[in-house]
């Protein structure tokens, strides 16, 4: 099977998986406990790495841009730069990439192991749909928690920028906060929350699909996990471009 055929096949399988997961929402049982457990594992479990990533990303933005801002006498706009970069782009994308690495790999490995040890077959044999039991709760958990994690990444990024601006460059905190407030527009905030919704769906679908299509024992689990992380990460970056373009069209601005 060549690459193009494989791509079309995967796209078809992922679309079908999405449709079956959506259909599963209408039927009982709805596995609410499983959904909450996944939210805990994905959301609470990823909190530390997301906040650390956000904090140091905000810090490095100031570290790299402060000299240029100072050259143009625009130090008072430092907060605006951090807020805009984080809320529009870096927050959603970095949070999604971190979640793809941490959660996408875990989902794919877990489902892949269940496939090779016949647990998925056992689930079907016991009259349970693996899509409803395993895929739908994970998708919903990702769609709900990724925007929340993105908000935390944005927030800690802005704090990180402020800490670096204050401690290394002596920028007054009131100026920084005022600059952040003038930089964060409503359209940015809305766009910055729409993107992680889509990214959560992409990561969930790709990871579940890779996990459920695992073949070849434990070696296959490793391959599926790698493919899940790589494909999710690339898809997030590609989707970010198209989403930014779409949001520009919707909000009538070129700011995204």
């Amino acid at each position, binding site marked *: 099977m060549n690459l193009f055929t494989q791509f079309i096949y995967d796209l078809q399988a992922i679309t079908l998986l999405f449709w079956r997961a959506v259909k599963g929402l209408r039927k009982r049982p709805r596995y609410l406990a499983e959904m909450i457990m996944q939210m805990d594992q994905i959301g609470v479990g990823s909190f530390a790495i997301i906040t650390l990533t956000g904090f140091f990303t905000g810090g490095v933005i100031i570290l790299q841009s402060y000299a240029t801002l100072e050259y143009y006498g625009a130090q008072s706009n430092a907060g605006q730069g951090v807020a805009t970069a984080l809320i529009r782009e870096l927050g959603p994308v970095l949070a999604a990439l971190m979640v793809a690495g941490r959660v996408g790999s875990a989902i794919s490995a877990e489902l892949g192991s269940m496939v090779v040890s016949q647990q998925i077959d056992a689930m079907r044999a016991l009259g*349970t749909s693996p899509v409803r039991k395993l895929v739908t709760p994970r998708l919903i958990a990702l769609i709900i928690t990724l925007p929340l994690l993105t908000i935390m990444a944005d927030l800690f990024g802005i704090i990180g920028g402020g800490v670096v601006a204050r401690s290394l460059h002596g920028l007054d905190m009131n100026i920084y906060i005022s600059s952040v407030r003038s930089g964060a527009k409503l359209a940015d905030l809305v766009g910055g929350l729409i993107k992680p919704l889509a990214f959560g769906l992409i990561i969930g679908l790709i990871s579940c699909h890779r996990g459920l299509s695992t073949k070849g024992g434990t070696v296959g689990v490793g391959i599926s996990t790698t493919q899940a992380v790589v494909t999710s990460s690339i898809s997030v970056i590609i989707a970010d471009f198209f989403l930014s373009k779409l949001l520009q069209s919707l909000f009538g601005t070129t700011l995204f």
Partner: protein
Amino acid sequence: MTHGIFESGADEPVDSEELPENSRLIPAIEFRDVELAFDDQVILNGVSFSVHRGQTRIVLGPSGTGKSTIINLILGLIKPDAGQVLLNGEDISDFDDQDLMRIRKKIGMVFQEGALFDSLSVYDNVAYRLHEARLPEDEIEHEVTRMLRFVNLEDAIDKMPSELSGGMRRRVGIARALIGDPNIVLFDEPTAGLDPPTARTICELAVKLRDIEDVSSIFVTHEMNNVEFISSEYALIDPHGEVDFEPAGNTFCLTNTCVMMLRDGEIIFEGREDELMALDDPYIRRFIRGR
């Protein structure tokens, strides 16, 4: 189904859907000219057989001859290219996912390695089907204890699958398959890799199901010891209520057990174990002798 040794609590079975009065005349499992191929490779070629209530059909054959495919077809995990698969008289060949889920709830499946859910305890594994049906917890606890007693594993109720030996995992798998009192149970090489005494324990459970519970079953294996035991011994309840195993010997013939052998997707033998052993076919002789 009857409730011989299962009847410790005198409760109704969990799945109360009763079989029709004439269910003995309708095969529990029936294959009619089933054909299946993956790409150019023929897996099953015109396979026809039936299993009636209380019967066990032992499916023999080397790896890759389509034994496990038969089980997957019964579960509706794959669909035949041609022919029909009937369960209790219903043709499931064209069933959608919804209907298949309904059918699967009435089938017990025992996997080669047990296929227990790693993240769940023995209790939760056995109770899985009942938790899915949202039954009250006290009822679930009663059923799980009853099933674990049936497989002699009451003490392992709180253990995790990783703490169990291979034989115990299979027995928990059997308890999980039997919950809800299915009238069809499928065994997919349940004794593979087990020592002879443990393998015999698994076979005893299959015989108990056949003779005391009136369950129809398919027992896929490539081990002749299993065939010999299942075909030559029967289970009965002694006056003290204990289950006993007796050799059929020359007293009578176990008509409720049939051996079927597959080769390249076709049935090359169907009959009793002693008839199989008496055959001169070189392929069958080589399989029986293991060389």
